[in-house]
């Protein structure tokens, strides 16, 4: 029997899917570079204290707004804080929020979406109304009220953005599960007597997870944006914590005085959003085993 099979490397059956995805991902050069940068950003964020030459709050008022020098590779801000260090610590804050908020959203949204897509009926009807309610409330207004009520800060911002992000995840998960619910391979699993929870998790989830992961990755830049918006209103991350969105708002005023102060966070955000969206696109293709 002739086997018209592709690559013949012997792979362990469990890692197979991810292995293949990784193979496809690697072939996409833009996605690969973006992915590497994205990972670097995350690493920088994780190891900020080790990498940054100064603390994020370390001030030297006598060194206010100086340009790049050997002491301060990228110069300092108004309070004489090292910009490079702030950008590095900024990665930590921004990435915590940008990754944490979608995570919260996913944790809330995906189970709801799955339940509503899989079981339909009343659960679905209620979920759909909840979608509408959440979409209809102006986000800024809600945020301001909640911040006035609970205060602001990295964690609270993260929670707020996460809680409002659930709808997207739920919608997507719902659509995925509705689309997959009646597919033959799912029916086959039912025919096999596989318990419902196992069908939902082991059989359907792997097919649904691709778009969800992609959505997650796309939410990362979107969340950086949203958080920056709150900083713009002065209601985001608290000083002196370094955060890119905050640094943009603080720094843009200095564009004529010290260009690095204004540009550095913009470059950081642009880099992060772009790499994450390219990486997201790459992931979408890679996670679909049927794409070339």
């Amino acid at each position, binding site marked *: 029997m002739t086997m018209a099979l592709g690559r013949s490397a*012997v792979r362990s059956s469990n890692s197979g899917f991810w292995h293949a995805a990784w193979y496809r991902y690697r072939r996409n050069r833009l996605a690969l570079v973006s992915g590497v940068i994205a990972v670097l950003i995350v690493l920088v964020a994780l190891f900020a204290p080790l990498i940054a030459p100064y603390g994020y709050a370390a001030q030297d008022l006598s060194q206010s707004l100086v340009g790049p020098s050997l002491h301060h590779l990228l110069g300092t801000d108004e309070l004489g804080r090292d910009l490079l260090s702030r950008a590095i610590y900024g990665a930590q804050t921004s990435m915590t929020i940008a990754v944490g908020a979608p995570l919260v959203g996913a944790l809330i949204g995906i189970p709801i979406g799955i339940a509503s897509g899989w079981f339909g009926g009343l659960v679905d009807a209620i979920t759909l109304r909840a979608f509408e309610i959440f979409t209809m409330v102006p986000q800024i207004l809600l945020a301001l009220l909640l911040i006035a009520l609970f205060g602001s800060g990295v964690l609270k911002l993260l929670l707020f953005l996460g809680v409002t992000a659930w709808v997207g995840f739920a919608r997507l998960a719902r659509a995925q599960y509705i689309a997959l619910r009646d597919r033959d391979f799912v029916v086959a699993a039912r025919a096999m*007597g596989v318990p419902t929870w196992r069908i939902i998790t082991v059989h359907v989830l792997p097919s649904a997870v691709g778009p969800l992961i992609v959505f997650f990755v796309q939410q990362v830049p979107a969340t950086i944006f949203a958080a920056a918006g709150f900083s713009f209103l002065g209601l985001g991350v608290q000083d002196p914590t370094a955060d890119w969105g905050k640094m943009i708002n603080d720094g843009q005023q200095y564009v004529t005085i010290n260009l690095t102060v204004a540009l550095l966070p913009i470059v950081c955000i642009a880099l992060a959003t772009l790499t994450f969206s390219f990486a997201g696109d790459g992931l979408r293709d890679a996670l679909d085993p049927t794409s070339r």
Partner: protein
Amino acid sequence: MHDDQQPQELSGRPLLEVRDLQVSFRLERSTIYAVQGLDLRVGAGERLGVVGESGSGKSVSAQSVLRMVPSPGRITGGDILFDGESLLSQPEHRMRHVRGRQIGMIPQSPMTSLNPVLTVEDHFDEVLSLHLGLAGAERRDRTVELLRSVGIPDPATRMREYPHRLSGGQLQRVMIALAMACRPRLLIADEPTTALDVTIQAQILKLFDDLVAQSNVGAILITHNLGIVAGHCDRVVVMYAGRVMETATVTELFARPAHPYTLGLLRCVPRLTATRTRKFHAIPGLPPRVTERIDACPFAPRCERATDTCRTQTPPLDDIRPGHSIACWHPVTDATEVVMTSTPTTPATPATPATPTAAEPPVPTAPDPLLEVEGLVVHYQVRGAGTVVRRRETVHAVDGVDLSLDTHQTLGLVGESGCGKSTTGRSVLLLERPTAGSVRFEGRDLTALSRRELSGLRRRMQIVFQDPVGSLNPRHTVGQLLREPLHVHHLVPKQRQRERVEELLDLVGLPTDAVSRFPHEFSGGQCQRIGIARALAAEPSFLVLDEPVSALDVSIQAQILQLLTDLQDRLGLSYLFIAHDLAVVGQMSDRVAVMYLGKIVEIAERDSLYARPHHPYTQGLFSAVPVPDPTFSRERGDTVVGGEVPSSLAPPPGCRFHTRCPLARERCRTEEPPLEQVAPGHRVACHFADEAVRDNPFDLAPAAEV
């Protein structure tokens, strides 16, 4: 009718001549040589059949004629002469006048081939004004006339519809009318009926024949079904791996096939034989992926006659007789014999007129059938249109079905699309909760079981689906797929699982290294083997086979059918075999049930049914099956089941078939015929079954006479 002995092209210069056509697709890391030196010619009024397995380059060749090979593909050599003029050297704007005006095209999937946002009329307006400069009332009249000529009822109103409001059959009629709109001189039909039901297929092919005959166009009919070629073509080209293997007139080809590949194809076509066969002739292996130019006979790896010459030298396409050429180093000389031996009983015709009583006594029925379905009803509630409160409408998918199946037996279930076969299959497994009725499996009523009891029983009954790829989880490796049932039912201890998976793979004829691969890395036939292996993993005693071979090429189809037959023998399985093709069902089943619109209209022992179908619908189905025998096809009358299946939202009252039945009269419209015994084990639901057997409205006469 066409005279097959005198190919018309001899009368002068052919309408279309393709010479040594080469087409290749340059992909990122490989090149696909889709067509590697194709020669063919079509004369006016001639119908050329192009057959070959999937991927053999049929469609690409057709696209090349219109210079429409999709993007990475390029015509790299050869020439295409239309009416003596080379099409390849025409500038693009001239080509546009050839397309649609000189050459019409009929697509494979009519459902996706019309612009969904334009009405049917818009499509006609476009071509008619573009090519013929028609406008206004004249254009409208022409459209109506065209649509009428392809049998669209009430064309003046129907043409204002959007495509999605028309059924597949009607759409294909529209596509044909559209292709004929400017009276082209050549018609290319690329598998025009693959997406359609047998009955509709018969209607469309008849239409095709009529049009070609009336308008004297040359026609290329691309198909993978040799049965169609036999009935509807004058000459045949057999393609394989982008090359012509054999070409001859239809009669010649079927009478004296000379290429082993042609022979192979012929032998694996399912036939309406008198008795059931348990031996299938398949071409082993798979068609190659033509990623390089093969300097050898491309068929050699699958050919039992292949020698070293075949593996090292390309055989030229040589005439062995006038008008019959083949590319083979070792042509089959005594083909008739081979074909004959491949079909042990009398070929092609629907059997000897054996009286049911004279037939072999059926396998003695066990006192307790394995599966017993009584009064099965499955209704779906769907949301219909409504004013303030949305009306709920009922789909009568299955409407009172009784079936029974004994151990180690196969029950065939046939019927047109949408008649409720799959629904029956699924509700038998309780994958769909029956609205009413009972399903007894191994003596227990499944509908009364608790969830837990049912899930325990599930491993005794499994299902294999039509779409081999879609039924396998694309994210699971074959290993995971096969281990799942073992895991769920705790069938084998963990450390033995691997061994068992390998056993299963072996059972269905797959190599053990398939374990770590994903479904999409396999061909359709291989996927179906995986699907079967998965079904078998749970060690069931009963399988629902829901059109397990409909999506496969004939050669692969035979492989799978053989596998299923062998497995049944080895493992003592019982099958509920669902198909829409009487020939396939006939090869597999001990008993056959014919379904129409949610009801069983006829059920009998296989041989009894095939010898003497009683229900007009059954007879219609028989007449629609394409038979790979030109003589028979030609002699068989061309009456086909007209019309289309009514909506199952509102099935017709009385006998559901009355809307399409040539025998229907008043009583049929009001009174529902019961399923009555006409012979032992043969039951029919028709008020006029006697008359049907006597008169045979669908011209099954030749069968009765032989």
